[in-house]
Structure formats: C-alpha cells, structure tokens
C-alpha cells in the first residue's frame, strides 16, 4: 500500500468528508470517530511518505496513470514531504482537542462542521502535495471556500469579517490563476517541473515577469503579508475556536510553502534572485511586516487578536527569510513553516481552552488563570517561549537560521527586525502572564464555588494541547536532524 500513500493522503480525507456528511443525516455520533480515524490514516500516510522520501528520494505519482505533462502528477520531494506530516498532525490534534467545543457551539451542525473541516484539510494537503500548477489552484479553492464557511461561524462580527476575507482571498486566488494562465500561454504546460524546464529561454520575457509578479502578489494576499494583511486579524479573532486554531496555524504557512515552491521549483532561484533584482525590496517589505505586526500586537488588549498580529509578523519572518536568497535564510524559512505551524497551533489551542471555560479572551477575562487552569497556562508558557525564541523550544532554531541568513546576506535591517520582534514578543507575553498570574481572580458572583479552586478544561482538550507543547520542545531538540536530513536536500544546490 505504501506506493499509494501520495493518493491516500488526499483521497482519505475527501472520502471521509463525504461519508461524514452522510453520517450527519443518519447518526450524528458517528461523525467524530470517522473524522478522527480518517485524519489518523492521513497522518500515517504523510509520515510514511516522509520516511519513503528519506529512503528513496523524490517520488512521482501519476494520477489516472497518465504520464506528465499530459496528466496530473504529484511530486513528493524533501520540501513537501516535510510539510505534509505537519499539516496532517496539526489537523488531527486540533480536531481531537476541539470535540467538546464543537459540540457545545454547534449541537445541530456537527455533521457539516466535520465535513468542512475534513475538506479543508484535503485542500491544504492537496496544495502541498501537488506538482501541477493548476491542480494547486483547484485545491486552493477548496481550502478557501471551506475556510470561509468555518470562519464565518462565530461571534456576531464573524460573518462580516469573513466576507472581507472572502473578497481579499478571492482576489488572491484569481491573481494566482491569472499568473498560471500567463505561464500556460508562454510555455503550454501546467506541470511545475515541466514549466521550470521550459522557462530558461524565456527568462527575459515580459509575460513571464508579469506571471511571476501576479502569482507572488496573489500568494502574498492569501498569506496576509503586510500590507495585504488587513483581512486576517478580524477574520481569525471572531471565528469559533476550532476553526481559528485549524486555520491560523495552517493556511498562512501553506501559502508560504506555495511561495517557496514557486521560487524554488517553478521559477527557479536563478530567475528569482539573479535575473530579477527585487529581493532586497521584498526583504525590506518583510522588515516592515515584522515591525508593524509586532507594534500592532502591542496595541491589542485582547489575547486572540494579539496572537493574530503575531501571525502577521511571523509571515514577515518567512517571506523575508525566503527572499534573502541564500541557503541559511531559505533553511530558516522552511524550518519556520514547521515551527510556526506548531507554535501557532499551541497558542490558539490555549485560547480555545480559555474560551471554553471562561467564555472570553479579552485581557480582563484572563485574571487568575494560572491558578484556575495550570496545564493550559503551562502550554501557553511553552508556546510563548517558542514564539519569543527561547532555546530549547523550536522557535529559537528557525530564528537562529534566519538571523544567520540575514548576516550572510548583509541585510542587517532584517536582523534588527527579528531581534526587535523577539523583544516585543517578550513584552507581549509577559504582560499576559502577569495578568494571568498576579492579579486575583475577579469574583463578581459572591461565593462562587470555583473561586480560588482549579477549574481546568476537560482532559480531552488538555491532553492534545500538552502533546503539542511537548512537540514544540522535541522538534527544537531534533532541529539538527531535520535540517541535515530533510531541508538541506529541499534547497537546490545552486543556492549558496
């Protein structure tokens, strides 16, 4: 069966989404077990695929048995085989952790919720695994459409915030599609590897330049790269916890992956960094993104919204790292896709637990939480350490590579921005810790039975969260192996 892993990892969530949808009409209680089992099989296939790639190198899977470029092919190389397990494991852990929250919020609509959740995961995995530029767009549509549906269910302001996201996201996807169309006009192919082979004689073509610009802007819009980030904070903040803790870690990171894929495979680093002389300008944009993300986060008095601005700043890290144009920067960017997905998941799951228990995430609601929810807060501390970049959590190591990359590229502005944002993160999180730790639990209800006592979220929510927190440290400790055995081969040797 292992030769079918590439197909299984998208087909299993897709088929299970359909089965869950039917089960939702027949017996609601079946939905959750089916969804968990499907994501379990998916995660298994992703990990199996990573091991196979480590063993055999690049794997090509021909869908429908057609040889590319006639048909669609999946290329699983070191880059996407690293991202696939992250996406599937994040989705699985988040689903298990949010069972209670989902049942609490949508008692009548668990079926459609799990259906959309699984379809979203299908879309994200499909984007990562595909080797076909148009197939990527189709999966992007699925991930986006289901994402809008999931995010729009939440607080009163969620539908409007999501409508805004829908407009921006649609423009982003259209830009990407238009860029692919331009590439098709000048090369006649949609297969990424094939396009890369046909492009070199066309490097001076204006159409290829325009295709690259349009694709990049579209992808930047989708990943909320400053100044195209305006849709993100509200859309993620007002959504329900299960959706925001799936979408916040994964969507922006998967779009960063798409950007890196376009740079490394489709347009090749030679074209992007040598023929075009814009990398410096993009890194400066990333510097602004990081600084603005950090400053805007500082202005928030609300935990979830503060975290969404941190997501905006983190996107700046990855875009900047990738556009430094050297090996260390690119290593840092790819490593940060993995690390940031995990640490964003960790902090958003913490918010999910707090919302489940306290019904709020404004700073005033957080008072006394260390006493009330010690395990959840322990996870928040580890997640925060990782975002700040304290060893041995994984956030430190990707930041380290990014800073090394900035120094070897001679881009000290980017280095300063990284350090600035780390310092701001320290301020941000210690302010939260202070509120959670020192101020007494505001007790408005007189003799409430849980004043002073422990009132932790259910075990089913805390255990996955603690697993994520442990993963943050484990990934940090194994950074060397990830870089030496996987990422090193993901970057073309031409890049120094």
């Amino acid at each position, binding site marked *: 069966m292992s030769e079918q892993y590439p197909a299984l990892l998208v087909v299993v969530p897709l088929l299970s989404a359909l089965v869950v949808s039917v089960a939702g009409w027949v017996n609601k209680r079946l939905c959750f077990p089916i969804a968990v089992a499907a994501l379990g099989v998916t995660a298994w296939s992703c990990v199996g695929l990573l091991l196979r790639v480590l063993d055999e190198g690049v794997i090509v899977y021909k869908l429908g048995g057609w040889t590319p470029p006639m048909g669609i092919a999946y290329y699983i190389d070191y880059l996407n085989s690293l991202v696939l397990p992250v996406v599937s494991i994040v989705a699985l852990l988040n689903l298990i952790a949010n069972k209670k929250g989902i049942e609490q919020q949508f008692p009548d609509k668990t079926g459609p919720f799990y259906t959309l959740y699984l*379809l979203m995961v299908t879309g994200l995995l499909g984007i990562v695994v595909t080797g076909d530029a148009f*197939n990527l767009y189709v999966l992007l549509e699925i991930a986006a459409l289901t994402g809008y*549906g999931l995010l729009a269910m939440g607080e009163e302001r969620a539908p409007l915030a999501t409508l805004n996201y829908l407009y921006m996201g649609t423009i982003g996807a259209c830009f990407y599609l238009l860029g692919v169309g331009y590439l098709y006009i000048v090369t006649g192919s949609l297969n990424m590897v094939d396009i890369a082979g046909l492009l070199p004689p066309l490097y001076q073509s*204006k159409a290829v330049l*325009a295709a690259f610009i349009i694709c990049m802007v579209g992808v930047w819009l989708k990943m909320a790269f400053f100044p195209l980030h305006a849709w993100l904070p509200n859309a993620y903040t007002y959504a329900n916890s299960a959706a925001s803790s799936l979408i916040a870690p994964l969507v922006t990171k998967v779009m960063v992956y798409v950007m890196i894929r376009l740079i490394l495979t489709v347009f090749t680093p030679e074209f992007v960094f040598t023929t075009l002389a814009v990398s410096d300008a993009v890194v400066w944009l990333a510097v602004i993104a990081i600084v603005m993300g950090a400053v805007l986060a500082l202005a928030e008095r609300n935990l979830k919204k503060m975290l969404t601005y941190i997501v905006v700043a983190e996107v700046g890290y990855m875009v900047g790292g990738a556009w430094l144009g050297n090996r260390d920067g690119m290593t840092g960017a790819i490593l940060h896709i993995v690390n940031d997905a995990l640490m964003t998941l960790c902090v958003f799951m913490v918010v999910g637990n707090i919302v489940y228990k306290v019904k709020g995430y404004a700073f005033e609601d957080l008072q006394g939480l260390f006493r009330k929810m010690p395990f959840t807060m322990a996870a928040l501390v580890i997640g925060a350490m990782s975002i700040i970049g304290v060893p041995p959590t994984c956030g430190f190591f990707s930041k380290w590579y990014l800073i090394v990359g900035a120094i070897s590229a001679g881009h000290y502005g980017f280095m300063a921005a990284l350090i600035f944002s780390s310092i701001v993160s320290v301020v941000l999180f210690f302010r939260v810790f202070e509120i959670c730790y020192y101020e007494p639990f505001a007790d408005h209800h007189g003799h409430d039975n849980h004043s002073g006592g422990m009132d932790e979220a259910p075990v089913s929510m805390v255990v996955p969260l603690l697993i994520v927190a442990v993963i943050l440290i484990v990934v940090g400790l194994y950074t060397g192996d990830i870089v030496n055995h996987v990422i090193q081969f993901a970057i073309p040797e031409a890049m120094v």
Partner: protein
Amino acid sequence: MKIIGLIITVTTGALLFYAAGDFPAWSDPASPASTYLSPHFIEKTMEETSVPNIVTAVLADYRGFDTMFETAVIFSAGVVCFFLLRISRREDEEPETRYYRHVLTGVTIQLKEGHEIPPSADFERIDSMWTPPDLIIKTGCRLLIPFVQLFALYVIAHGHHSPGGGFQGGVILGASVILFAISHDLRTAVRRMSEKLIGILCAAGVLIYAGTGALCLLLKLNFLDYSALAGVLHVDPITARSHGILIVEIGVGIAVLATMIWIYNNISSAGRYRQGL
C-alpha cells in the same frame, strides 16, 4: 483612499497590457499552447480513451483529478450554505400567527396564539407573505419540467460525443426542480425532495466520483486510472476509460443537481425552509 485604489488598478492594468506584448499572436498555430500538448490530445485521445469528444476526455480523464476536486468545490459550497444559513427548528422561533389554506376551496384561515392544525391533506400551511397560486404559471411549469429533465439526462449521457456532461446536465436538472419550487412553493418542493435526501445525494454524487477513483486504487492501479475497471466491466482497458468517464459524469450530475437545489432552498428561505420565494 479612492486615489490609491485608482493607482493600484491602473498599475495592475498597465502590467497586464505590458505583459500581453510578449504573447503569441492571436490564434497563432505555432504558439506554445497549440504545439506543446494539444497535438497529443488531438491525435491520441481516440486511441487512448475511445472518447470522440476531446474536451470531455481531457476534463474527465487526463485531468480527471482536477474535475473531481471541482465537484468537491461545488459540494463544499452546498455544505457551507447549509452550515451558515440553516436555522434548526430548535433555534427558530415559531410565529405567533399561523396561516393555513384549505386546498379545495382556497379559503385562507388565520390562527392566533400558537394554535395549529395537524398536518392533513385538506389544509396546507402558508406564510403571511404568501401570494395566491397562478394556475397558468403552475400548469405551464408542470408541462415544461419533464422535458427539461429529459434534456438534462441527454446532456449528461451524451457528454462523450457532443458538448455537455455532468456539470451542464446537473445544472439543468437542478434548474428544473428550482423551477418547480418557484412556480409552486418551497414547502411543496421540499415535500417532494426532502432536505435529508438532497444532503445525502449531494455527498453521494461526489462519492461516486471519488469512489470510482478509489476502486481503481483497490484494483492495484493508480487513483482514477479507469483502465483498472476493465475487469469489473468486462471490456478492454481503453473502453473501460470511456465507461469510467460516463460513471464519473453521472456522479458529477447528481452532485451538481443536489447542490443547486440545496443552495436554492437555504438562500431563498434564509435557512427557515418556509415559503421560499
């Protein structure tokens, strides 16, 4: 703000025009798009898939994987509409005043303070916004609908030879049911085709498509490689491809049909499933 918008639009437009300068000439037979893959499809489609319509073969076989996900996109749209709009009976506050119509005489009755008539063949529940039925429209639509549906089935079945296929046929089928719902009312339409049936059909359509692909996988070939079905269908692998396309087109048709109706039902009644438009 308006000025910034104008500048961005003009810049983008200028970029697109600038790039168009390097495009191959209009309908240039030597352009990369016409010389790279198209000759293969034009020359080989018949012998590789035994489908005379090249567009259908590319859509449902060479790039069938994309089409499967396009169907999944449509399915997601239906689920999203249901998820966001449907108001469950528990949350929906019933109106104080209810209206019923006596079917035979057309007399309308108003009941106050939450009284209701048990469901029967004599009375049907209507809403306050209700407009009296128009005999001409109702009869006209009843006459039209069977022919619309017949044509839809033709479009689905004939996708191999002429323009058409699952998407187009499914839309026509869905439109026929929506026409019924508009000319009568949503309650009547939902009685004929319940919400549960539509929800299940919607998933079943995509399931036929993805399931066919998975079946190929179980028969030891790659996903969606229809030639694996040769043994099951008792034909040669090339004809199996042609039959495989027909199977998935039927799946697409069912999914599109059900999704169209599902979206219409939810949007037209704002998720309440009462009178509709």
